């Protein structure tokens, strides 16, 4: 499970912005704005990291316990999947 190829992520005026390029730009117009943790999760998923790995990383950066972090990552994954952002392979 991994974020599809064809997304470009940048910091714009302190905000994390993601847009689709190439074939994805036909499918997804507009942009995605992510908060700090959303950006961490997105980057982890782009690398193909497992949710547990991403959650563990979050607990080191933010004041959040492991169960809560994992639940948040999973919720993010559910949303990303429903929008078609993920390659499941």
């Amino acid at each position: 499970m991994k974020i599809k190829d064809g997304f470009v992520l940048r910091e714009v005026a302190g905000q994390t912005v993601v847009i689709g390029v190439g074939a994805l730009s036909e499918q997804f117009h507009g942009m995605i704005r992510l908060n700090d943790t959303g950006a961490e999760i997105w980057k982890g998923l782009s690398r193909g990291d497992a949710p547990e790995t991403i959650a563990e990383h979050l607990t080191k950066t933010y004041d959040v316990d492991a169960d809560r972090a994992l639940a948040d990552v999973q919720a993010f994954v559910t949303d990303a999947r429903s929008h078609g952002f993920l390659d499941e392979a």
Partner: protein
Amino acid sequence: MSEKNMNDVAQDGVSGLHEAAQSGIGHAAAGQPAGESARTLVLACNVAGVACEVSFRQSDTPRFFADYLTDPRAAEYRQLLGPVRVPYRQDLVDACLKEFPENGPAYAEWSAAYAEISNEMPRYNRFVFHGAAVEFNGKAYLFTAPSGTGKSTHIALWRSYLGERVDIVNGDKPIIRVEDDAVYACGSPWSGKEQWQRPVQVPLGGVCFLRRGVENTIRRVRPDEYINAIMNCIFIPTQDSALAGRALELLDQLLTRVPLYELHCDMSRDAVRTSFEAMTGKGFDDYTLPDEPKTPVATRQKTSDAADPTDVQRAADAAGAGDAASPANTADDTANVSETMSAIAATDATENEAAK
């Protein structure tokens, strides 16, 4: 906004352009479909300091580039960035002709070149911005709004109350150039139906998001308040991830280095006073007389009511995710993604309110 610029595409530059096309780099392009006798020539032009070599077939096409044509043999030409070589794209020309047949084939070639050149601009620290930019006292002021809101009207009002102290940079698609010393607004050959443009590069003094209102008010805004709106305004080369990323990096520079404003305005003299004083820091009464407009707003007969195919292609919507920063809020944020994602209506129709 000199009379010359407010009028038809200048006629006087045309012969020079054509000459450039026929000499130097002018040559028949390879890959011409068999059976077509049209000769493909190349014109050389200077777009915001970038050399562009545009393939064309219609004898009228160079006229659309008139103020930007350059002699490719001149020493100055070699000082420019680039060149961006624009091949003849029959598919783009045909698409434009199909959509706007009444505008003719030369217009279609000019539009096709816009798409190609806009795509390449981020490579040279530049990007196309959909808005209207004027120059006053050595600084450029860029107004942006959804089409139909009245940005053309607003800059025409600046001209009518402030006279020749105000000049046009570009009425529809200035090119933003990001350098270490300053961010510039630059003229380009693509300037909307009014064809208000000058081939200049002017340090940008402010960007103003224009809204219609019953009172004239203006305030400074933070960059993050307007990211969604501004993403509508810029041309992002979405077929190339490196250039798309570069465009976003340049946008970041624009947003963090240039003052941003939100103006609510009507079409009165007070509307001009409001934006002028806030953005320039000067007293409106020091630059104008307390009477009616003294410079008539120039108008230009439209060639077509059709929507402009060179409109910035990326449109997002105004919905945005919040600033929440804890993991607990990620679900809310991604919920907002759907709203943002689903919106891409290209809203830009005609701007009939302009230049009344």
